[in-house]
């Protein structure tokens, strides 16, 4: 479990994270969503004890990261795939990190196998593609078989096959009861991976909800196709629905497709189509972050 409690981080006059509070629970993949520069990485660095919070706390399993004598056995993190020394082999890069936590070379070979780098394990990392470096970073995160995992934008630079692999890996890790936090600036990616979402904008919490709740919240309207738009529109308005005309028909808010169908039947209007429209999660996300942007811009002036 990861607990972020009233976390605030300022760099000079810039506030990167602003009184952020959320909890990441075990057994599910939690997506950490926000635009570039919204404070995701700063929050993750604070969880890992790399950046000292200006105020507030970030706890892993109820403890400060720095209080773990051998943290890799509790927490694994992929922060930046580029954070390697190009002159070392993949195996040696992992062995150096593993050694700090008393993890032996055999486990290093295991994780190299697990991420599909066994064949290039003894090649210099300098020649690795971004995708291979991501896999190496994931291998590093898995070294200590930790119960809590943080991945910062793990699909960057991966090819489609790699992206699917990492999605499945994250689902698998969560399925084993681990706590998995994955950041991304792409809602479409989160829609496929995450069970739960923490959305932030400009360092503030915008929403924390399950994927299903979010979809429900952004259920939009019902599109009704009918030869008599004027007549049916008036009938729907008469029972309190909000109706607007579109090229394809009427956009109706406030009634379910069933209610609309029954009403049309009783009033004798022909209905050619009845479609429940839901905002895509992408739209939902943009709506959410737009609000935060407006709010911010307003409050500053």
């Amino acid at each position, binding site marked *: 479990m990861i607990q972020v409690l009233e976390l605030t981080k300022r760099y000079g006059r810039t506030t990167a994270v602003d009184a952020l509070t959320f909890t990441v629970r075990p057994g599910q993949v939690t997506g950490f969503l926000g635009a570039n520069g919204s404070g995701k990485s700063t929050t993750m*660095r604070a969880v*890992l*004890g*790399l*950046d*000292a919070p200006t105020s507030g706390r970030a706890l892993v399993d109820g403890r400060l*990261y*720095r209080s*773990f*004598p*051998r*943290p*890799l056995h509790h*927490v694994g*993190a992929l*922060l*930046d795939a*580029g*954070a*390697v*020394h*190009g*002159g*070392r*082999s993949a195996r*040696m890069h992992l*062995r*150096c*990190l593993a*050694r*700090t*936590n*008393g993890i032996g070379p055999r486990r290093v070979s295991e994780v190299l196998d697990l991420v599909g780098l066994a064949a290039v394990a003894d090649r210099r990392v300098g020649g690795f593609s971004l995708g291979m470096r991501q896999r190496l970073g994931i291998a*590093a995160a898995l070294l200590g078989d930790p119960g809590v995992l943080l991945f910062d934008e793990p699909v960057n630079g991966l090819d489609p096959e790699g992206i699917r692999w990492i999605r499945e890996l994250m689902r698998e890790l969560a399925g084993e009861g681990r706590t998995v936090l994955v950041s991304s600036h792409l809602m479409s990616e989160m829609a496929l991976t995450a069970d739960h979402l923490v959305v932030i904008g400009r360092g503030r919490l915008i929403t924390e909800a399950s994927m299903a709740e979010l979809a429900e919240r952004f259920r939009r309207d019902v599109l009704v196709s009918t030869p008599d738009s004027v007549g049916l529109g008036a009938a729907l308005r008469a029972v309190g629905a909000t109706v607007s005309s579109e090229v394809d028909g009427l956009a109706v808010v406030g009634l379910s497709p069933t209610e609309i169908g029954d009403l049309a039947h009783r009033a004798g209007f022909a209905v050619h189509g009845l479609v429940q429209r839901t905002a895509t999660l992408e739209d939902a996300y943009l709506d959410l972050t737009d609000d935060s942007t407006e709010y911010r811009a307003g409050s500053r002036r």
Partner: protein
Amino acid sequence: MMGDSVAAELLKLRSLRSSWVVLAASVLAIAAGGVLAVLITADFDGSSLERRATFDSADMSVVIIPLLALVTASVAAAVFTGEYGSGLIRTTLTGVPSRRKLFAAKTLVVGLVAFALGQVVSFALFGLTLAAVGDRPAPIAPWTSAAAGVPSAVASGSIIAVVCLLALGLGAVVRSTAGTLVTVAVLLYVVPGLAAFLPAAVSDWVFALWLLNLAPQMVGGDGSLLSPVGAVAVAVGYAVVPLGCGWFLFSRRDA
């Protein structure tokens, strides 16, 4: 679990090509020192008595150690700066979240390895010089007896460790390899040149406090302004002050 951190830092050092390049350079430096000692001795033998009186000693550590110091410093500086360059320091700190432990492990590894390397090079040069000079008299013989040369070998070898710890500490402050090495190079080679423009009273002291002039003063060589203890203290200061600044910033800065 300090041992784990130290072992990991040793592994890091071992797994970089530059470490082995420095080792090769050290072997080369020893060989070059030996050849130079033989050459200067042969020149001495072929010279007139008057010329012999003006000869320098055949102790080649005076030339070799200052050069090797910068080469070893480049590896020592990179112990911090190399990790900052790529962001690897963050990965390292997720493994060793205690900054005190990490800083101590790096200092210990650099200090011990550099000290050992410095002593090996220094004593190898000492042995080669003794062999080349044989029973010839001063000034070509640097020491009155082999035993008399031992303290001098220890002192000149220890300068390698001082310079490496200086580079390590400075690297933690500056976080850039180039910046660190330029500063080390200025301290090693430029300071005495600048001191020459100062009034004699000042320049004598600058020269006495110059890093590469400390080893002879540690063993009470001719013209020492500092006492042996004083020279050792100044050498320790060259290592401890940058390390202290490095620790101050490293323990407080975000990674």
